[in-house]
Each structure stands twice: as C-alpha cells, then as structure tokens.
C-alpha cells in the first residue's frame, strides 16, 4: 500500500506536468489539444532514437527534445490552429488536433513500426529502499522508490517551478494570464494575442518531452499508446477543472494514486478508476474541482 501510494504520487507528478500543458493551452486558447497524447509518445520515440542511435543519455537528451517539441508546438499552432474561426471553433480545434495526431501516429508507425519498445538506461531498474517505519500508530512496511520516478518527479517539480515563475513573475506571464481572463481586452491593451497563443502552445507541448522521456523509461510503448495517454490526461484536466493548473496537479496526483491502489488487487480494472471518478465528480460538480463557472457557458 505504501509502495502504491508513493509510486502514485511520484508518477502522478509527471502526469500532472503533461496535464498542466494541456490545461494551459485550454486556458489561453479555449481549445483542447487531442494530440497531446501522441506528442508524448513522439517525445518518447525521440529520446529512444537519441539513446539507441547516438548513445545520448535520455536525461541529457532532454536538452535536445525539449526545444524540438517546443518548436513543433509553435509550428502546429501557427500553421493550423490559428486559422480556425467562427462558432464551431472548439469542435474544429478538436478535429484539427486529432488530424495532427493521426499524421504523427502514421509517421511513427512508418518509422518505428508497431513493435513496442522501451528506453533502456542505467536508472531504469534501480531503486532506493526505504525501510519500514511507524507513522503515528500505523506501521508502514518498507518500500522501494524507483530512481526513474524520483528523477521524473524532481524534473516535474522543477518544470512546475519554471512555469509558475514565468506565469507570475514575468511580463510575458502577465500577458498570458491577461489573455486567459479576457482575450479581447488583452488585445485592446496591446498584447499580441497570437504570439502569446503560439508560445503557450509551444510551452504546453514542450512539457511532453519530459513526460515522454519518463513514460518511455517506465513503460513499453508503441504509436498506439497515445490513446491510452490522452484519455488519462483528458480525465485529469476535466476533473481538475479546465484551465486550472493547480487543479490539474491535484487531479493527477489523486487519479494516479487511486489507480496504483486499485491496481494492487484488480489490475484489469485499474484504468476504469479514471473514468468512474470523473463521472462521479461531474455529477456533483459539473465544472470539475477547481473549474470556473464561465467554462459552462455554451
């Protein structure tokens, strides 16, 4: 149980980061990026290719994959999403990002094939043992902390710190928040909303580089894995409340931990936890845990 909870919290941090990218994009641009799942897999394949062909350590490889994913995100926003106008913009943004996902999926199948692969590294299977201890009156059995989870959680926290400082301590961050509050007003006071949208999309996609690296080390993956990821990420951002980064973090930690716990005795049904929790919460609170009221307007 202690093992499941710590794995859930550490793994949850990585999911929180990927979900934060998704929810940030929603907050600024009012669109859902369905391609986020396959972008994580694309990043995982990039890390994999770098480590297999160029023998670059996946951690060092982040120095390459993060900028690559950032540029890809900016390009997708500029080339496709910016062109959408009109009443059905939301629905069309779903279809456009899905089309981007289909193209990436096809390209990945073409280049890497359907056989699952995993990133091999020195820290993939090593772990730290935490001996048993007493917490108040409960005896906690000893458990292991997988190094990759520790590294992933550490990196995710660092990335969150960077995102937080950018949003709340820089001029650019202020223009992002202004755009989230009111697009028209932001434009009126001289904010280049298009530039903000492109850079936000870039940031939202760049975090998948980190998520993809950790996912690739901890799971065997093939291009089909994107569906599994996007369904989890969507459940997390909806549960947290669309547009709320803090909500995404809380929801990710909760969902991944709950999944790990159910996984202890019902491995087949573990993923249903995501959707069951989602449906139950939305019955009680349709805007999600930390969602704003406006998100409900049609």
């Amino acid at each position, binding site marked *: 149980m202690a093992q499941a909870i710590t794995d859930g919290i550490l793994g949850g941090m990585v999911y929180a980061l990927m979900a934060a990218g998704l929810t940030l994009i929603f907050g600024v641009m009012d669109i859902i990026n369905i391609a986020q799942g396959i972008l994580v897999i694309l990043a995982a394949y990039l890390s994999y290719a770098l480590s297999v062909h160029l023998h670059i350590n996946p951690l060092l490889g982040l120095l390459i994959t993060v900028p690559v994913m950032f540029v890809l995100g900016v390009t997708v926003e500029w080339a496709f999403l910016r062109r959408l106008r009109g009443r059905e913009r939301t629905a069309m943004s779903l279809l456009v990002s899905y089309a981007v996902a289909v193209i990436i999926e096809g390209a990945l199948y073409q280049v890497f094939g359907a056989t699952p692969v995993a990133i091999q590294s020195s820290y993939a299977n090593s772990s730290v043992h935490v001996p048993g201890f007493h917490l108040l009156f409960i005896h906690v059995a000893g458990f292991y902390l997988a190094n990759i989870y520790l590294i992933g959680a550490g990196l995710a926290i660092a990335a969150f710190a960077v995102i937080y400082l950018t949003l709340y301590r820089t001029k650019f961050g202020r223009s992002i928040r202004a755009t989230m509050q009111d697009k028209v007003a932001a434009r009126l006071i001289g904010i280049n909303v298009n530039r903000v949208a492109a850079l936000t999309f870039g940031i939202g996609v760049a975090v998948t580089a980190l998520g993809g690296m950790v996912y690739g080390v901890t799971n065997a993956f093939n291009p089909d894995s994107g569906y599994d990821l996007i369904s989890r990420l969507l459940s997390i951002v909806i549960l947290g409340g669309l547009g709320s980064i803090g909500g995404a973090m809380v929801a990710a930690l909760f969902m991944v931990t709950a999944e790990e716990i159910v996984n202890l005795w019902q491995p087949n049904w573990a993923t*249903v936890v995501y959707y069951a929790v989602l449906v139950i919460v939305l019955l009680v609170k349709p805007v999600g845990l930390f969602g704003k009221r406006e998100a409900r307007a049609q």
Partner: protein
Amino acid sequence: MNTALSRSASTALLRPAGILVLLAIGVAYPLVFTNAVATNDAIYTLIFMTWAVAWNAFSGYSGYISLGHAVFFGSGAYFTGIATVDWGWTGSKVFWLLPLAGLLGGAIAVPVGLLALRVRRHTFVVITIAFFFIFQLLAYNLQSITGGTSGLLEPPAATIGYAVATYNNPFYYVAFGLAVGTIAIAWLIRRSRFGLQLRAIRDDEDRARSLGVHAMRVKLGAFVFSAVPVAMVGGLWWYYTTIVDPASGFDPLNDVAIALMAFLGGLGTVAGPVLGALVIEPTYLTFQQQASYWYWMAYGALFLIIILLLPRGVIPTATEQFGKWRARWRGRGVHAAASPAAISDRAEDLA
C-alpha cells in the same frame, strides 16, 4: 413575388424528382456493379452514412459534439453477435435482431445521456470520450460475455444462405434501407418543432430555456434517437464481417471519421453527412487497401485540408454561393434586396 412563386413551384417538382433518381440509383447499384469489392465498399459507405446522419441529428442540430457514439455501434455489434450465436439463428432471420440492437442502443443512451448532458462544450466532448473508454474496457474485461481481447471467435452456425456471387446483396439492401430511413427521420426532425428546439439550444441554450424549451428532455430525446440507428448498423456490421473485438467494435477513429463526414458536408444539414460519407468512406477504404502507413498520414492530411479550407462544409458554402449567384443573375426583386445573412439562413433551411 412572381419570381418567388415560380421558383418554389420549380423546386417543389425538382426535389422529389431528384430524390427519386437518387433512390433508383441506390436500388440499382448492386445490380449494375456486381463486383464484390464495389458492393463491399458500398455497404461500408452506407453503414457510415447512417451513422453520420444519426450522429448529425444529435450533434449537428444541438451543437453538442459527441465523440462517443462508437459506444452504441460496438454495443449493437456485440449484442447481435452474441444473440446470433447463442440462439443459433441463421440466414436472413438474423436481420430481425437489428431492431432489438437498436432498442438496446437507445436503452444504453438514456443513462449515458442523463449523465453526460449535464455538462456542455469541451467537457461534454471529454465525457463522451470517457464513456467510450469505459465501454471499450468493459469489452476487454468482461471476458465471459465478450471473449476479451480476442473478441467473439465463434462464427454463426451457418452464414447467410445465398449464392456467392450475390452474397453481398442482402447486406447492401438492409444497409440501404437503414440509411434511407435514418435520413428520412433526420429530415423530419429538422423540419419539426423538436428540431427547432434543438437548434435553439445550439444557438443559445440558456435563452432557449428561458423561452420555455425543456432543454434536458429535448437533448436527451435527440441523443437517444441518434443512438438507435448507430446500434443497428453496428449489428449489421457484425453480421457482415462476423468478427468483433474491443479494438474494432469500439474504434476511436470511427468517432472522428463520423464527425469529419458531417463537417465536410455541412454540420447540422440533412444532406451534409450523406455527401461527407459518400466522399470520405470510399477514400478511406482506398487508402486502407495500400500496404504502408503512408495512407494513414495522407488521411490525416486530407482531414486537415478539409477542415481548414471548408470550415463550414460543402453544402452550406455551395448553397450560399448559389443563392448569391442567383440573386445577382436575377438582378432585381426580393432576392437582390435580401441581405447575405437572410440568404444563408434560407440556404441552411433548404439544405
């Protein structure tokens, strides 16, 4: 006034005539194109056409984009497969299971709709995706009923008892009948008070409610209606292929392909999804017959081009252009005076 009268008189004759010609083409198709590949492609096109029209009668009219209708397709397929094998039905008798599959789809849509329709916009889309994954997971995990990952392996006792050369024909005509029936009902809904209420919800749900539309009842009614034909073609699809597993019965790509068909033709119009299915499904089948994954990328690229170049769809864009052209050509009278907005409203009603 005079021009308007003669115009409506000519369309009053033209439209039934056009529909009769289309019906005749539909009936004659398998008699002319006896090639099994041609009828196979036609069956798939009709199945997806029915699905797209039914989907559009909910999502297109109400503005609630559902990416979870594969729930009903897969449920219909599994129900028909399990019932056929368990009851040992054979031949054309199996087609009588399709109305039952439709009822099952409608019955599933009631609780799903009651839960999902509490939320709007993006959240609704994601909730429908969540339901989709719940059902796919059920298909994977309820192994004693669904056969788990490998699907329903046991073939029906005897396949349909027709000659090989015309084997596809009964499937074709059942699919054709389902498509025609669904289009007719979608057309009736669009013309009815119910359809008007749905479009009022699409335009401004809160205002529609304040004007006395029972929004939940109307939305749920449309949702349940749209589930029935989808479950029926799901059952037909199973009997045609006699294979279903969780990945093919509950296929997320189908959900998006359906939305694409409706968008290509014109979301919320009656003819739009019909046209979309006629263009997209044969294209997809052609791509699919290629050996490499390039078809996959080409499909995605086609998808992008359609949405970016024709955001409103073929039918509304074409009818609007036609209306403008006719107004310019006549040059005077009521049409020339009508604002572009009025023309496009009219165009939308005609479509």
